[in-house]
């Protein structure tokens, strides 16, 4: 029994490496370095990266920016709650807020166009999870995250919440409609 006994020689670090270990360490180290450099590589050549753009904000300040966008670009309302559907022009700043228990407002974006999507929370932490395309980020009160997104699939995407936010967590949803664009 040896792993539960002191090493046979006190100067254990001078014991030579076994060939099987040396070979494996070399392979594993190369793979580790490859995986490390893959991340900066994707920042340069990949298309799916989170921006590092974020600002401190307050629920009031973020709410007023969202409201200004709603006042200007609402195209219709939906559901019994009359939730506004907002279609901001391509390239513009789009605001989406998470609160107990709703993503607000609903958005209508054009395929292939790029938008600056600002997201923040009015209360607790929420998880922005866009389904079925499957994009997930953490939404934190007091922080305004900016994602520059280019929707490239037509149809409905549902925003669900995937950070636990209390008893109504499972009812917290929203929508992003992706359209061909108005003529």
């Amino acid at each position, binding site marked *: *029994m*040896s*792993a*539960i*006994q*002191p*090493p*046979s*020689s*006190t100067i*254990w*670090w001078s*014991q030579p*490496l076994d*060939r*099987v*270990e040396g070979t*494996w*360490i070399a392979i594993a180290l190369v*793979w*580790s370095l490859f*995986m*490390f450099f*893959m991340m*900066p590589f994707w920042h340069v050549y*990949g298309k*799916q*990266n*989170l921006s*590092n753009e974020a600002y401190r904000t307050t629920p009031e300040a973020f709410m007023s920016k969202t409201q200004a966008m709603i006042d200007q670009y609402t195209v219709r309302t939906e*559901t019994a*709650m009359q939730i506004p559907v907002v279609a901001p022009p391509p390239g513009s700043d789009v605001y989406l807020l998470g609160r107990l228990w709703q993503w607000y407002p609903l958005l209508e974006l054009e395929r292939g166009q790029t938008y600056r999507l600002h997201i923040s929370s009015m209360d*607790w*932490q929420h*998880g922005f*999870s866009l*389904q*079925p*395309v*499957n*994009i*997930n*980020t*953490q939404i934190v*009160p007091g922080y305004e995250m900016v994602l*520059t*997104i*280019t929707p*490239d699939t037509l149809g409905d995407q549902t925003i669900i919440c*995937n*950070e*636990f936010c*209390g*008893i109504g*967590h*499972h009812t*917290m*949803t*929203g*929508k992003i409609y992706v359209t061909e664009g108005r003529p």
Partner: protein
Amino acid sequence: MSNEQFRICPESGLQFHKPAENLMRANAVLAVVILLIGGVAALMVTLTRWPAVHLLPADRFYQLLTSHGVNMLIFWIISFEMAVLYFCSSTLLRCRLATPRIAWLGFVLMVTGIVVNNLAVMNGDASVMMTSYVPMPANPNFYLGLILFAVGALLGCFVFLGTLVIAKEEKTYEGSIPLVTFGALTACIIAVFTIASGAIILIPTYMWSMGWINHIDPVMYRLVWWALGHSSQQINVAAHVSVWYAIAAIVFGARPLSEKVSRTAFFLYIAFLQLASAHHLLVDPGISSEWKIFNTSYAMYLAVLASMVHGLTVPGSIEVAQRAKGFTKGLFEWLRKAPWSNPVFSGMFISLVGFGFLGGISGVVMGTEQINIIIHNTIYVPGHFHATVVIGTTLSFMALTYFLIPVLFRRKVMFAGLAKWQPYLFGIGMGVFSTVMMGAGTLGVARRHWDMAFTNSAIGFDYPASAYTLMGLAGISGVAAIIGGGIFILVTVSSVFFGKRLESESIYGAVPTRLMKAEPIVEPAGGHAAAGKWGFAAPGTFIFALFFLAVFVIYYAINWKYLASVWPMS
């Protein structure tokens, strides 16, 4: 030092110091009681997330999910780890335990903390999940219980360190501490860091919940909390890898391939594992990509390298020991002829394979900065950590417990036939459970979510039918694994309290003997690797390692491909 305090176990040759023995027993029993509470919660949670059953109402579900998380991830594992620390110091080094009274004080604080925290959760106003992200408030006793528990565990760490000092002072061992004790020391050092991080964040949060502080920044909270939350899982990694080495030594008489490599790998854990707080912040606002990349990769994956090294050297040392016994036919006779019906071995080996293939690979993939975008907070995440913490840590602790029942508790294992099958039911059930949850997470199913059908939501959403199938399979395999966990509790509790006593062998008054160095390595004729192939001492293990790497590379590539299919963003 009075001799009445010591006994020597006739089968294992291990020497027990009575106060240490009592503390180990108390901590192990406490751990199993917590495992039972957490297991009942696990059953309720599983039956609720199984769409066809959907057992609990939402408030109960979140309450029991909180209970399950805190009891399993913190209380069960750290309580058991205290027993492991005392075993690896006092028992392995054949010395008296430092300050048993302080160790008991630590134990009482831990029990108090567990009770205070559990009462807060049972009260219903602390259903905030294990992570208790601010600004969602919990009953102050929720945080207070965690703080008391952490202080108790910290005292246990200091007793462990004090015992190492005593062993050295009193020269109870020759040369350097054994590898397993070295691994336990690694776990202890990480535990001190972890508990300090916990104090730094939970004490202010407690004060906030009492109304003495009015604001805690939520991103700062997440950063520091995860230095507790993730690093505490790294205590587990160091502890269960030590348990793997210990079981390889106990069952096979295996010695490490080289002390240098295994110890350096443990040192890499100390140096880099704590950076993993970043794994939870990869899609958070306000943190730069440079910081995320450096930290999420543990500084260029050096801690991953360490785990890949242990993943080779643990089975490699078993292979070398088996080949020395004459199991040299082909590449895998050593493994075929391993004692598969001994739950000490089978539990350890399933733990190793499950941790590496399911937990290790998925952990690295989801911890890649950009890939996290398609995985964060989906049920993929609990899929991953049930493979690491449950198959890796819990199953290896179960395997060690089967060894400890006769050696530490002096009882015969009851229901030995059931015990033989338990690691398979638990390990394979949990393996399927983890895999199907990862599959459902890939389809976007959320974690910590009561209703994947979004009932009563103003805007509905339908997951694909395959997501429902996978969650149904998660329900079935989860229940299978829970039955496996129940068998473990049945076997251990009935053995410890009602098992046949091995009375004649509990004689105290043994003369303490010194722990001698391992025999020098006897080179077989024809050189070190003569029993192996291609100049490798452990060729079968090497083939396994290459297979592991191939799976890793393919799965890593698939996830980049999947990421490339989602909306462009920058």
